[in-house]
């Protein structure tokens, strides 16, 4: 194995040999964008809806938490969901959705973090549940209007697998979580704390529509590895 | 008639006719001379000229390239403008001559100077003379083949199209693949004949779909390649250099058919 020093020494040597006029300085694009795809004053929620629907996701605009809960329950029933795994999140808690789903015949499991000692068992338990879950229910950390993208950070209550393993993924977001651009979403991450590496969490998944492939004759097919369905419930009621 | 602002109209140019133009398409050089004459521009033809040296350059033989190219630095040293009825040869002179002579300050200077004074015909007419209407007349459905070096090395895309569109009687019918390479590529056509021919087939199919009866381009190499296949297939599509088209309605010599001369 090469040591880091030996490896980098070769790189430095090559940079010297190559020389040329290669002392380029690129400033990052202002705001991380060249031309934002979102126009000033555009209705971000409407744009988000158009973009996400454009790539095969569904978007439901609802006015109240009760309406959101109803929508999720109805969808779960429609899909015949028996096992539901969800994030632990304040927004989902306020929907008081677990009872409604259970009333509809589904088992609901929440990815609630465990103590250090129990974490190992908890992980295995959640993994087994996710492997057979029919539906994953999550919140979002932000939604990006210009591309119709959900930003999902990995946190103790926010398992990556919820938006990944089940065939159906439902995400609930508030309209005040909608940002204009990808760069705006990154900015929100940056501003969420002092330590950027902490803010980034171990994994941020940017999800835009269902899992898709064009690997057979370039024809679009959904649901190859990730969810074949992505539903976003967009709640107009602001957080309180 | 108004002069283009801030620029003196050229009165004298040197013609670099290119080796393909000299040997195979003399009518292209002739049309160029007569066209320039009509515009009131005198033409010199330095007789010592042969080739821009691109074949050797593209094959990787830079020493041989320099031997031939260096003569052109001297031959054309005293002309304010050098006009070339070929995008490919112009690109050779403008882009690659300076690099070829980068080691020798004197020759490098000469090469840079020649590069700055050398123009492909359509860009010379459009950008330097400042005209897009040379008073030509031609009845036909004309498809334009944008030769690769002209459009992508020199960035000349508008000039030939504008000049064609202003020829009286022309119905422009651009093929959807008008910017696609015809597969000529100099010695490529000989070294990789199957690939080259497959590319050419696609080019010709797009011409047919466009319903063109005439193909116009700014490079004799592409014209020879495309016409060679049209003729082999017995297809009745005229193939013309832009200079010939722009000289129609004025020249005794009528454009040739692919299946003709």
């Amino acid at each position: 194995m090469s040591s880091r020093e030996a490896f980098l020494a070769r790189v430095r040597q090559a940079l010297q040999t190559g020389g040329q006029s290669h002392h380029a300085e690129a400033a990052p694009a202002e705001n991380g964008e060249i031309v934002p795809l979102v126009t000033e004053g555009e209705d971000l929620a409407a744009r988000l809806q158009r973009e996400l629907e454009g790539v095969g996701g569904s978007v439901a605009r609802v006015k109240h938490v009760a309406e959101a809960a109803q929508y999720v329950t109805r969808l779960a029933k429609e899909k015949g969901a028996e096992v539901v795994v969800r994030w632990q999140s304040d927004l989902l808690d306020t929907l008081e959705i677990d009872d409604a789903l259970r009333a509809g015949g589904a088992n609901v499991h929440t990815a609630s973090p465990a103590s250090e000692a129990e974490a190992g068992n908890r992980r295995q338990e959640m993994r087994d549940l996710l492997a057979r879950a029919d539906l994953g229910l999550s919140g979002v950390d932000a939604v990006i209007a210009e591309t119709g993208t959900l930003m999902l950070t990995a946190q103790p209550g926010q398992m990556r697998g919820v938006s990944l393993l089940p065939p159906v993924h439902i995400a609930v977001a508030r309209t005040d979580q909608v940002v204009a651009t990808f760069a705006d979403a990154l900015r929100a991450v940056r501003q969420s704390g002092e330590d950027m590496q902490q803010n980034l969490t171990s994994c941020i998944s940017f999800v835009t529509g269902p899992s898709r492939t064009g690997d057979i004759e370039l024809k679009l097919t959904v649901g190859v590895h990730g969810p074949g369905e992505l539903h976003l419930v967009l709640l107009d009621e602001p957080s309180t | 008639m108004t002069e283009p602002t801030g620029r003196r109209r050229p009165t004298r140019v040197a013609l670099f006719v290119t080796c393909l133009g000299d040997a195979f398409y003399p009518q292209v050089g002739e049309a160029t001379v007569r066209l320039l004459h009509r515009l009131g521009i005198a033409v010199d033809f330095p007789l010592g000229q042969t080739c821009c040296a691109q074949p050797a350059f593209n094959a990787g033989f830079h020493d041989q390239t320099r031997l031939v190219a260096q003569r052109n630095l001297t031959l054309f040293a005293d002309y304010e403008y050098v006009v070339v009825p070929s995008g490919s040869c112009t690109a050779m002179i403008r882009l690659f001559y300076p690099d070829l002579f980068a080691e020798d300050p004197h020759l490098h200077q000469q090469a840079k100077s020649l590069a700055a004074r050398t123009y492909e015909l359509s860009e010379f007419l459009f950008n330097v003379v400042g005209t897009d209407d040379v008073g030509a007349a031609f009845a036909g459905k004309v498809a334009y083949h944008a030769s690769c070096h002209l459009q992508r090395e020199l960035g000349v895309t508008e000039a030939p199209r504008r000049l064609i569109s202003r020829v009286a009687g022309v119905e422009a019918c651009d093929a959807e693949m008008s910017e696609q390479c015809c597969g000529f590529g100099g010695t490529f056509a000989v070294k990789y004949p199957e690939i080259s021919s497959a590319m050419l087939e696609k080019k010709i199919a797009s011409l047919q779909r466009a319903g063109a009866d005439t193909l116009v381009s700014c490079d004799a190499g592409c014209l020879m390649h495309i016409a060679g296949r049209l003729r082999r297939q017995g297809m009745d599509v005229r193939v013309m250099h832009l200079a010939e088209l722009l000289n129609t309605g004025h020249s005794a010599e009528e454009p040739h058919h692919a299946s003709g001369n």
Partner: protein
Amino acid sequence: MHLGTEGFQEHARQALKDEPLQNALHLLTNEFVPRRVAAMQALGDPEALRTQARAVKEQAVAQLDTYLEQFADNLDKLGAHVHWAHDDAEARDIITSIAQQAEAKVIVKGKSMAAEEIHLNPHLEELGYEVLETDLGEYIIQLAEETPSHIIAPAIHKTRQQIASLLHDKLGDPYTEELTDMTQIARRALRQQFLRADVGITGVNFAIADTGSIVLVTNEGNGRLSSTLPRVHIALMGMEKIIPRLDDLPVMLKVLTNSATGQKISSYVTMITGPRRAHDLDGPEELHVVVMDNGRSNILGSENREALYCLRCGACLNVCPIYQNIGGHAYGWVYPGPIGAVLTPLFTGLDTAKHLPRASTLCGACREACPVKINIPHMLLNLRRQSVSRGGAPAGEAPLFSLWAWVMRHPGLYRLGLKLARLGQMPFARRGWLGKLPPPFHSWTKSRDFKAVAPQSFRDRWQTTLQYEQPSRNGAGGGHHE
């Protein structure tokens, strides 16, 4: 295994006769090219985006040592392991020893050109590991025991029927040509493996120096699964994948996905910053990042440095009239198309891959499509020159061009040459054209006529008439445009 680069001409000939391949290439050309063009146009100012993306890569590569150090330091802080591989053998050994320590049996793989480059799968399989490609296209290729033919659409050369038979034969599911059913068959088969796998191996699309993050850009979700479910995640990257800042990511992502598939963004963009944290309920326990040189420092130190700016988007393949006709396998190694014609000689040696830089018309469509404006045609010219100076020119070319240069330097000889050609062609010329040429030019006339040397060259016409003609005094004609 790859076909190898020496038999390029023969491979190309075979490809031209391969009807399913030709249909697939036709489809690819008609789908991907307009999609990319439309997508880039929709970006408002695609030129500005490309300029910025190029500037980012220029900077990253020009200060690669600094950014690699920063990247590695950040990964250290996160508790990830960084490994440095000088060449392919080292990269394979590093990955093998990680797999050994993990006591792995099953390894799932996301799509990675870097892994193709080091022939990782055969190596791991030989050692007894069960290795599964999980990108649908790569999975199909693996079942068929072939190699990818396109960077983005690896199985583009296979028809739906061929794939249907393959799934039926290899997995035992009932035969179906329904895309949805075929996809679900693969999903079920691979999902089981994802849950069994001990190690997940992925490539890296971007490695962000100032945060230590790696970014995976996928559509299927297999990259997410490979980096989430197995206990150990190994990310293999060429060292040029670095971008300096997180703030560079929006622009780089945009040019990548729009150029690759014409998507504004791919279905999944996964930004991984270290292994799972203490209280996370999923994600890998260990993250290993393998930074690979494997010839890249040679490129870095050469005139072809900008080859390292490549994002592996595949746009140059789709627009290339050569690729459109012969597909990916004919190029004989991992990277096909125009960028392959540059990278393959640089990675595997110019002497064996000498056809690749020559088999191009230098049309420049690749450069026009490239999201970071890599000047591929000029690099092909560099490589041709290098090949000649190493004695790699095709037989007979050197004396031919010496003779040519001698003739072209002597206009009298040149004129004599034309005269001789005129005499020689006399018996064969028909109305100004030749139906047959002698070797070595006979290949032209297999499918095309060749123009006969004109009875009177331009210089003859000049000397006899044209030089006496005068420009018109008033400059008749020549209406001015604005």
